[in-house]
């Protein structure tokens, strides 16, 4: 879809094509005809593409800065230690793409081939894709609204030539918004194994993680488990451990409650 007005009610909303902000939008007729409410053909295309991908795992949080990208990167490396396992790491944090830096791939570019975009390979069996590879300068800001971010995610899933992959890990931005809804919707037909939720011990993180668990329930995404990062600190000088309250137990009732 082309550029949309910033008050776009959403192509699948009841107001699609009929709202005042729809006047002058190039997609107005399309939306008013109800075509926006029809399933996106990309979903089937992505299903086809994902036939060569055995397992798809989302890394979520809700809270920012807990270590989703750190965890995703290390999980990817860990899985790729077996050189017979093909691993793909997809970074859908469009505004703050951290994966290139964490994987030591800053400055790398994406190449196009007849079969689509080629991921950047950090190992023979570990390929990475991120919007970071499409930006020419470290100061470039990606100031995009939801629909444009969704379009990028669709392209990442449909147009990247991942090849035969055992594990596709998807690193996400914090929150429960466009990126999260889009990746779940676009992969709807392709079956997502589940989500790993990352948190830190503080209640301020857990507060957001509980929302993320609600999000997973709402979109029927299985939760593989929760990881607690930054779990305490041992002073390198005196070796005394700074205690952080154990807190994962407070999440158990919510994860295990009957649906």
């Amino acid at each position, binding site marked *: 879809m082309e550029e949309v007005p*910033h*008050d*776009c*009610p*959403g192509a699948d*909303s009841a107001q699609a094509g009929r709202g005042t*902000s729809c006047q002058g939008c190039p997609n107005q007729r399309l939306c008013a005809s109800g075509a926006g409410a029809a399933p996106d053909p990309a979903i089937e295309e992505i299903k086809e593409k994902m036939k060569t991908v055995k397992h798809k795992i989302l890394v979520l949080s*809700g*809270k*920012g*800065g*807990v270590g989703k*990208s750190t965890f995703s990167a290390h999980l990817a490396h860990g899985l790729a230690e077996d050189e017979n396992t093909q691993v793909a790491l997809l970074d859908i944090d*469009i*505004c*703050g793409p*951290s994966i290139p*830096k*964490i994987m030591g791939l800053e400055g790398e570019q994406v190449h196009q081939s007849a079969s689509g975009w080629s991921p950047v390979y950090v190992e023979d069996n570990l390929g990475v894709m991120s919007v970071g590879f499409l930006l020419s300068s*470290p*100061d*470039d*800001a*990606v*100031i*995009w*609204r*939801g*629909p444009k*971010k969704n379009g990028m995610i669709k392209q990442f899933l449909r147009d990247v030539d991942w090849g035969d992959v055992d594990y596709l890990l998807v690193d996400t*931005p*914090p*929150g*429960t*918004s*466009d990126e*999260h*809804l889009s990746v779940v919707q676009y992969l709807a037909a392709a079956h997502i194994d589940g989500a790993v939720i990352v948190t*830190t011990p*503080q*209640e*301020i993180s857990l*507060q*957001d993680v*509980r*929302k*993320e668990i*609600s*999000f997973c329930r*709402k*979109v029927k995404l299985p939760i593989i488990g929760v990881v607690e990062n930054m779990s305490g*600190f041992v*002073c*390198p*000088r*005196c070796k*005394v451990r*700074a205690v*952080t309250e154990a807190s994962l137990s407070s999440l158990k009732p*919510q994860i295990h409650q009957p649906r």
Partner: protein
Amino acid sequence: METAAEPENLAGVRHIILVLSGKGGVGKSTISTELALALHHEGKKVGILDVDLCGPSIPRMLRAQGKAVHQCDRGWVPVFVDREQSISLMSVGFLLENPDEAVVWRGPKKNALIKQFVSDVAWGELDCLVVDTPPGTSDEHMAVVEALRPYRPLRALVVTTPQAVSVGDVRRELTFCKKTGLQVVGVVENMSGFACPHCAECTYVFSRGGGEELARLAGVPFLGSVPLDPELTRSLEEGHDLTQEFPKSPAFPALTSIARKILDGLPATLS
């Protein structure tokens, strides 16, 4: 062209400061809260607008969870978090029936609520409105800047942590500030070193120097560093005022100094 916010509800607000990062988890909400508390201790009337719709942290930090939002003829009444009614707060957190409920909205719906938060909240007379934002450079940021456009100059305080992965994202946020005409008052580096409560050795858990480097690259003032302080964390977890509960905390002088520098940098009507 969309119309800007109705002027009445922000007519009594003298200064607006957006707290931005680009990177998640660096302490935007912490710094927003502590800045508001510091300004309050200087005798100022402060409002906090929390436009992080997916992860609204401020109500808990000010022990205001569960409070109700009332209506008046000018719109929503912000929630007062102190007895003197000198700190007011609006957050989507107050509008959720269940605090664990996820706000799973796409951009347009988020934009609409943010516009309402700007134009339909009866802020009254405020010395300063602190706007806490989510990480990124997307819908919420564009919506709040557009809605606040009649109130130029809009000032921005940029928060980072020392490590390169934060600085990388925050550079992009500084570009956002430039493109949208925000006046950057300075950079704050949070989680800058951990003082062991046992032996007082300071360890730079998250590397060092990133904040100063960022400020230098962007040509904006470096306002200071706030250490990683378990007492600061505790005060926010429990919704206490750091200065009352933990006055000996190493974060306290850092935060006070930063607030002072911000006040000194604002036009004379405030400081």
